[in-house]
């Protein structure tokens, strides 16, 4: 049974972390503490040698995870362990090549076994979705669609076909002045809502409680990434309790 709808019962808080940063045991602890602090979903990054679409903060997390030799087989083992403690919704965030090499059939079967609800693939746009669609559907794993509001027709096309939730990336490049794009974002959300019933989460650049509160007003959920990754970069294996405090603060801001 897919857990995504459950994660959007109220305003949803989605936290991104990189698997294996700095090691998988820490990742396990962090997921559990995120869950305890009230996060609704974990977006778990799969490390890749060439993460072309990430911020430099997440790129560095990739390097740390690869340094601890974190690969898919042990990541699935870790999720299996996590499932003994929490049933929090988990989606994976991976470049297509590690998934391709693992084997699509086997990969999605494994996702289903450990209750992974969805997958975000930054280098698999709408045009190439058929690459994995069959295996994802068969195993009830949603391919999460990223929407960047550049062309309105494209936004509509993607929305009509989307499953799980929409991952909305509102502004290009610089994310510091997102408040300034408010009317644009509201317009895109209107367009999306006309074309799909699934929830919409806003990602990229939300770090502070104030931003979280602001964006949760207009969307169904918010995604925080750099903020958590920076804590892990700083506190290393001791990160779990600091991530707990941060998530708690963010969650309180959106209720």
């Amino acid at each position, binding site marked *: 049974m897919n857990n995504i709808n459950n994660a959007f019962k109220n305003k949803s808080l989605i936290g991104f972390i990189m698997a294996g940063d700095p090691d998988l045991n820490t990742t396990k602890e962090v997921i559990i503490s995120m869950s305890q602090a009230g996060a609704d979903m974990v977006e778990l990054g799969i490390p*890749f*040698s*060439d993460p*072309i*679409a990430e911020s*430099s903060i997440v*790129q560095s997390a990739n390097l740390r995870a*690869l340094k601890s030799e974190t*690969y*898919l087989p042990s990541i699935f083992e870790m999720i299996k362990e996590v499932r003994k403690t929490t049933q929090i919704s988990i989606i994976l965030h991976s470049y*297509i*090549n*590690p*998934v*391709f*090499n*693992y084997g699509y059939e086997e990969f999605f079967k494994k996702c289903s076994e450990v209750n992974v609800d969805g997958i975000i693939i*930054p*280098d*698999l*746009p*709408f*045009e*190439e979705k058929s690459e994995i669609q069959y295996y994802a559907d068969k195993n009830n794993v949603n391919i999460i669609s*990223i*929407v*960047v509001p*550049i*062309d309105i027709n*494209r936004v509509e096309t993607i929305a009509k076909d989307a499953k799980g939730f929409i991952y909305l*990336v509102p502004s*290009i*490049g*610089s994310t510091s002045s997102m408040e300034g794009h408010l009317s644009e974002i509201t317009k895109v959300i209107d367009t999306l809502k006309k074309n799909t019933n699934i929830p919409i989460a806003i990602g990229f650049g939300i770090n502070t409680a104030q931003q979280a509160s602001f964006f949760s007003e207009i969307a169904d959920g918010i995604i925080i990434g750099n903020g958590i990754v920076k804590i892990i970069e700083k506190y290393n294996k001791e990160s779990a309790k600091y991530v707990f405090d941060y998530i708690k603060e963010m969650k309180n801001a959106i209720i």
Partner: protein
Amino acid sequence: MNKTKFGQFGGQYIPEVLMQEIINLEKAYEKYSKDEKFNKELKDLLRNYAGRPSLLYYAKNMTENLGGAKIYLKREDLNHTGSHKINNVLGQALLAKYMGKKRVIAETGAGQHGVATATAAALLGLECEIYMGLEDTIRQSLNVYRMELLGAKVHAVTFGTQTLKDAVNEAMKEWSKRYEDTMYLLGSVMGPHPYPTIVRDFQSVISKEAREQILELEGRLPNVVMACIGGGSNAMGMFYNFINDKDVQLIGCEAAGLGIDSDKHAATMTKGNIGIFHGMKSIFCQDKHGHISPVYSISAGLDYPGVGPEHAYLKEIGRANYVAITDEEAVDAFEYLSKIEGIIPAIESSHAVAYAKKLAPTMKKDEIIIVCLSGRGDKDVAAIAKYRGRIINE
């Protein structure tokens, strides 16, 4: 066949943020590649600025010395900026201009594509920024200065292996931040559709000329056509107009570095597997988890862990063959051609010369080989001297 693919290879595996711009590029290329004014202007630039057509030179000394097939060299080294890269760059920079772009960005490995891009940008009045791995900016400091002299800004990329692959990553990332006024001028037959097609079309002038030239000189087609291959732009250009000539053998020569059984090579076709990276499904050097491997070659221009999707397709259907040439063989060929013909080839092109040296003696005297001499070797002189144990201050 899917129009973005060559068989199963190719496609558009790129972040959503770039998709609309890629679609715009595809449409613009469709329009202008059929536009009379565009084509006239490009033809004029190729003739009067780049110096085309390039010569098809009969290498008499080399032929006699090897005692087998007749060897012709397609002299792309005589083009302005010293390599075949200018063919593609003039086409894409002109396209950028027709699309109303004010600025071009590009990746470069050895610096040949960067220099060519900076040159075209200077000529056509476009702003230019080049991404180059830090490691390569040190290996090719002369080319860095050359690009700056031409008015370009060079960014040293410090992430990852700090070579060509990382320069592509960074250029793509930068393009996704600023595309309204900027075109990414890709240097090889790789990346997401439509780049492999655009670059191949602009480079196909090589085989268009060579085919006409050999028919005029010999009254017949060659038996073998060969070229060095990293990403594969000069090879694709050299092969393209011979693909339908079923009796013409097509051979790509990739970099075996210190040997294909060492971990220091860039022999993608020989050692790689199918994967998806840099916007395309193709063949890559990668580990079993799908992480892209660091690669190595004495030639910075062949030092790339993948290959263009149309090459992967030509290999799969058995239309082209790919062989691997070591550093040592390439350096021997570099010295050989310099001494026997008075032509210093680029170390990249020397990989093709090396294979011609092996193959020609096994062929009959009335058979013909055309080797694409993709670039001149002036840029490599200091590195080859060092390889042979002599330190030269450039």
